[in-house]
């Protein structure tokens, strides 16, 4: 039903790698994100997830390979960790205009969208983890980004908050049609709407739709037998339409459509 066949490509990483101080942080990453597409990176600590995200955002320049962004690509970024010192007085209102100018109605609308409108005048240091995360989402969204980069967006958020945030990501994708690059904080947790899961371990170890990755031998090998079948795939509560062009793997991996099967959370 939805005509996403010719979705605009936002960013392409080709054989991209980063070497810092003689150490290879990540190498040989191929990755394409198109409008309305959700790509999730998983992998152990130090596997290069954040490095790959930083390649996409431009914080790191590729030492090898190339990163090609759509000209004028606007990125919204939700960082992994953001601690704002008490010495810096910052209200939510002010945080929203950190990197750009927005009207108060735009700010209100963005906060409303994440259910945080009542926090407008609150000092950011007073927010709970979940509230702060929502505000950071709103801050990234207000830019109307083409590409939204979420580095471990649900870290430090409790379980119900986690589900709500994933729902939010889905909404953002649906309403703005932005591409989303997400790093999962947990090896075994991936949103159901993810089109492509890329499993990293210094290099791309396996990729495909969530359910394909879950069954791939590389995934099992990397995360051990214990992980077998434990890739929890988050779904939102309502039933929804599936699009059938989920996977954009250039190698043409076997990919199947996600099928709401793997709902065995490991918590």
């Amino acid at each position, binding site marked *: 039903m939805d005509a996403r066949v010719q979705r605009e490509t936002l960013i392409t990483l080709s054989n991209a790698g980063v070497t810092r*101080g003689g150490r290879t942080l990540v190498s040989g990453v191929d990755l394409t994100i198109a409008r309305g597409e959700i790509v999730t990176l998983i992998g152990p600590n130090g596997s290069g997830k954040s490095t790959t995200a*930083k390649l996409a*955002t*431009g*914080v790191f320049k590729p030492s090898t390979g190339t990163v090609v962004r759509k000209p004028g690509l*606007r*990125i*919204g*970024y939700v*960082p992994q960790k*953001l601690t*704002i*010192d*008490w*010495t*810096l*007085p*910052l*209200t939510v209102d*002010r*945080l929203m*205009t*950190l*990197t*750009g100018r927005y009207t108060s109605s735009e700010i209100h609308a963005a906060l409303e969208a994440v259910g945080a409108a*009542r*926090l*407008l*005048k*609150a*000092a950011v*240091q*007073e927010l709970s983890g979940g509230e702060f995360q929502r505000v950071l989402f709103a801050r990234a969204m207000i*830019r109307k980004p083409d590409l939204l*980069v979420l580095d471990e967006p649900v870290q430090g958020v409790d379980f119900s908050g986690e589900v709500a945030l994933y729902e939010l990501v889905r909404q953002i994708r649906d309403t703005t049609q932005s591409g989303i690059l997400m790093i999962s904080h947990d090896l075994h947790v991936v949103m159901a709407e993810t089109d492509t899961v890329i499993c990293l371990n210094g290099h791309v170890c396996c990729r495909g739709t969530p359910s394909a990755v879950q069954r791939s031998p590389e995934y099992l090998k990397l995360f051990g037998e214990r992980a077998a079948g434990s890739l929890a795939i988050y779904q939102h509560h309502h039933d929804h339409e599936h699009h059938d062009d989920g996977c954009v793997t250039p190698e043409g991996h076997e990919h199947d459509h996600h099928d709401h099967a793997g709902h065995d959370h490991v918590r």
Partner: protein
Amino acid sequence: MSTTTTITRGTTMFGDYFSRALIAGVGLALVAGPLGCFVVWRRMAYFGDTMAHSALLGVALSILLSINMTLGVFAVAALVAGALIVLQRQATLSTDALLGILSHSTLAVGLVLVGFITTVRIDLMGFLFGDILAVSVEDIAIIYGGGLAILVILVLAWRPLLASTVSPELAEAEGLRPEASRLVLMILMASVIAIAMKLVGVLLITSLLIIPAATARRLSATPEMMAAVAAVLGAIAVVGGLFGSRTWDTASGPSIVVMALLIFLVSLAVPVTRLFGRREETHGT
């Protein structure tokens, strides 16, 4: 040159040394307050101290090379900042240790060099603790000209500066240039140190940056408000300190710092119930 007209006008306007000191000090405080906020936010207090200590080396070198002293101090402070960035990239010693080395060695080298200078009589105490009562009309012109330039740059670069203070990564991802912001900030700090040295001396400069800003924190809800409050509090400290030093015949530079400290201490007594930054009443969530 129009300086002659300034001077003739100056003799009437800035007649006595005390008014000149007031005008110069207030001008400096208005710049040091907002810039000091960044020093506090970015935890650059020791860094600022290091740059300030290097100012004495700048004084010695300017005399030896007979160049303009303000320029010499600026250049040395900026070089020290640059050296620190380079050394930090090597990542061998901690920033803390590097600052300790740079801070005290530049001060010591400056003191040794000053000892070599026999052609000019140097008022070492004046450079270490400042001599605000000796400011000339030209000094005031430099403070207001330089200060205005610093404030204009600060206003123009405010958003990227603040964004990269909150998170360099986020700023970079969203198309700003945090490295450039950092450079701008260092140049501004070197400039403030260069124009402040004569007034409060190399040992006390950072106090004018930090104490009003730290005081302003409790009274402010936004970064912009904190910058404005810091500027005003700094100006009050200058005026209060100078009048105090005249009344009790105390050293002027240190009196200003003591006044800033007193304001800070009084601000601590302001009840912690914050006037600002409260969320709207939440009903049962």
